């Protein structure tokens, strides 16, 4: 049983590191390759929407990865590469969208809901449990109880 859990943990850990990058796409310089990967992980795949471009197998995304690597190799900074992608695809391409009026709900909803839920839970648990005295039995009920004895 413990072995099964360990196996699942290993599989999940590997799944987290999934990469679609093929060896021939990688830059020779490992420092640059690491930077390109870090940039790619911040860019959302426009074809598959839920993956970063480093994880996506789509043919189109392969060319986006290639472009990121070319720009890194050409000496562009991380910010310059991200800016270029942002200028072409807008906020959509950034897995971490900027904080601005159109994304306020996106960024603020979780903490606001947490705080409101916390306040609600605080007052609910503080409220005294109902300890009203039970109403005494009526004469008819008493008679019924007596009859059962």
């Amino acid at each position, binding site marked *: 049983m413990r072995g099964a859990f360990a196996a699942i943990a290993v599989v999940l850990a590997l799944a987290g590191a999934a990469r679609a990058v093929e060896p021939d796409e990688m830059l020779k310089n490992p420092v640059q390759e690491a930077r390109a990967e870090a940039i790619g992980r911040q860019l959302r795949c426009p074809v598959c929407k839920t993956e970063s471009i480093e994880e996506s197998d789509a043919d189109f995304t392969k060319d986006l990865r290639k472009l990121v690597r070319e720009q890194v190799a050409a000496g562009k900074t991380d910010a310059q590469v991200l800016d270029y992608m942002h200028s*072409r695809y807008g906020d959509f391409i950034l897995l971490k969208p900027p904080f601005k009026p159109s994304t306020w709900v996106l960024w603020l909803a979780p903490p606001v809901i947490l705080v409101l839920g916390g306040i609600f839970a605080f007052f609910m648990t503080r409220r005294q449990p109902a300890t009203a005295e039970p109403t005494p039995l009526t004469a008819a009920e008493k008679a019924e109880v007596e009859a059962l004895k």
Partner: protein
Amino acid sequence: MHRLLFIVPVLVFVGIVIYFATPLLRGIDPSVIPSPLIDKPVPAFTLPPLPGYPKGVSSADLTGQVQIVNIFASWCIPCRAEAPALMTLKNMNIPIQGINQKDKPANALEYLKELGDPYVAIGMDIDRKVSIDWGAYGAPETFIVDAKGRIRFKQAAPITQDDIDNTIVPLINKLRAEK
């Protein structure tokens, strides 16, 4: 007052339903990525022609008149679906510049022979760099560029007759009148 608080979750729920149902009922496709390039000048580029064709396409060709730029490829199935619509636009004397995305020239030539050639010129974008510069994320994609060389419209889906009648032709007429 205290009892009225119970209506709050219901109101919140109704709000959420309205928020999500509105785009759904208005037919807004969430898979379409809004382009930040609308109203911006076309990116600078030069693409070589297909073999046997006299000229390719460059950003310099995209000023002076209202034009359509269409990204297509022989491997792209929806492009085949919109091919007749492009011929319709051609017959309406609307110039269409073609960007042939990530294609083998021989396949592209075969595709044009089979489905007709609606383009005034075609540039080969073999490594997709120009497509990416246009913010494309697939094919077909269609742009309308005004006489000043600014991108005014983008559609990342095959063009239908309905699009021609209700979107493309009215917009082109409007942009032509802007001159």
